[in-house]
């Protein structure tokens, strides 16, 4: 990924877990299924680090479909994707508020992570 294609800052890195499919966020040390734990890159250098983390994780066969997402920060400083697609992806189906992350569910099986 080149800087030209990078979404506007700030950004986070998300992906789907290879084994379980769950949407996961790069925390700086590993992958979390909780959006609140996403590492927020606010400058070019930090965004570049996220890109490196993405390339590394894909090569390690831990996640699939890893990419950067531009976010806004809510009152508590947590990242909220600006685009409606990514917002639904980090929350769960808008027509089933009882399912997905918004309902505290995760498909991630803790072993091996």
């Amino acid at each position, binding site marked *: 990924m080149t800087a030209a294609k990078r979404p506007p800052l700030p950004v986070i890195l998300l992906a*789907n877990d*290879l*084994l*379980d*499919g*769950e*949407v996961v966020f790069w925390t700086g040390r590993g992958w979390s299924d909780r959006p609140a734990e996403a590492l927020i890159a606010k400058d070019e250098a930090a965004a570049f680090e996220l890109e490196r983390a993405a390339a590394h994780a*894909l090569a390690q*066969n831990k996640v*699939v*479909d890893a990419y950067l997402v531009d976010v806004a920060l809510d009152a508590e400083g947590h990242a909220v994707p600006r*685009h*409606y*697609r990514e917002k*639904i*992806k980090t929350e*769960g*189906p*808008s*027509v*089933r508020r009882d*399912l*997905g992350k918004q309902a505290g*569910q995760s*498909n991630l*099986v803790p072993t091996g992570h």
Partner: protein
Amino acid sequence: MYRYDEFDARFVRERVAQFRDQVARRLDGSLTEDEFKPLRLKNGVYLQLHAYMLRVAIPYGTLSARQLRQLALIGEKYDRGYGHFTTRTNMQFNWPRLRDVPEILDLLADVEMHCIQTSGNCIRNVTADHFAGVAADEVEDPRPTAELIRQWSSLHPEFDYLPRKFKIAVTGSAHDRAVIKAHDIGLRILRNAKGEIGYEVMVGGGLGRTPMIAKTIRAFLPKHELLAYLEAVLRVYNLEGRRDNKYKARVKILVHEIGAEKFTELVEAEYAGLDGPSIDADPQEVARIAAYFAAPAYEKLAPRSSAYETAKAENRAFATWASVNLFPHKVPGYAAATISLKNIGEAPGDVTSAQMRVLADLAEKYSFDELRITHAQNVVLPHVKQDDLFAVWQALVAADLASANAGLITDIIACPGLDYCSLATARSIPIAQALAQRFANQQRQIDIGELNIKISGCINACGHHHVGHIGILGLEKSGKESYQITLGGDATLNAAIGENLGPGLAAQDVPDAIERIVDVYLKHRKADEPFIDAVRRLGLEPFKIALQETLHAPA
């Protein structure tokens, strides 16, 4: 119902073992994602927005109680307690883990089911009329043909890597309820002047970004010549179809680019060079398959049941449901019942595991252990005695499955859209829900009459919007969801692609726009004129004006 022979059973189990091994090799890194993806797709495993998705084939939409119970179990154990029926009469599970898929496939194999050919560039699950074996206008049950094609195509190495996916649908009736003209190949069973049975062969239909209506390339193909002729069509496509551009790779583009006449010539030339008899199915095998679809042991009944008439007279809700959701059965005293999965305010096609079990019980008790899944995302109990209809209805009411809206304006087709699908440009389910709520009034729905609304969340058109009387296509416009309305589509033998009515609308304006369109119809219709006929007579103009009014209505 068709039962696997030893060969079928072994084939399906081998595929499960093979996939288990492929998953293991993906996990230990010996397969890259690029290598693995086509393999998982061949087994029906997609990656959607929130999770993996597993697409289970329901060949020609026919299920037994045992099979539906197994789907209920899978939904409960490996998903979140529900499944989704699609316009291709498959079932999709939205939340399985990749690591669990081999186990799920084994559970499916236990009940003679699989996910093979539900994805990838192969011949997909063959669909058929959901009233097969029921409709009075039927020449022959289309399912033996569909099953024959399933077997032939499952094992055909030559057609395993086609330029693109390939979908075949079969109808055995004068009326098309399987949308055959929107398929790569549509087959219509008919009789010629001599009374012999054969097929009208239509090729090159499809939806997606370039919608096309299939063209007839053979008006009458003798029945026993089917497989060799299909082989000729597929060969021409396999050789001539474009592989350079995935958006131009479907057979519809080839037929369109070279013309139906030239395509027919190529097929006939190929066909002339084939050794037909060596390819065509052995008549004994055809008879073996057909025997599985023999009519169930119907009772001899009076054409009218007094118990049924009395129940209708005494219970208005039942009478309404019966008048809307029943389809006449060719055998006196029976009816086919459509069970709507379109409750007001719920996601079209979604069904809970608990509901699946209720449906399985009803099928076993009242419908010779048979269920059908329709392309309109509903379920059919094909052979219910009129005497039993009231009991069936009561059980449906208790399970929240008794919506009386089959074929009406709230019987909306909607793809999963952006709530689940990673290709989506907009949501479709909330639009379906808002429209259903707007038109919830039962009497008003009946007054409006037959009206098909079909919604897709992107140009791939999985929700059939092109052939909806009213089609709704969800797009993205300047970072917001925007909905384009089309009018005049038709999914029957009069197949037509709907025309765009004007600029896209914001989600909250869609119900108003549809209501204005319906009002134009109500104002101008003649006596019993259905919506689609009125649209044909009136043309788009009055409806365009209605849409403009929505756009300019004060907020």
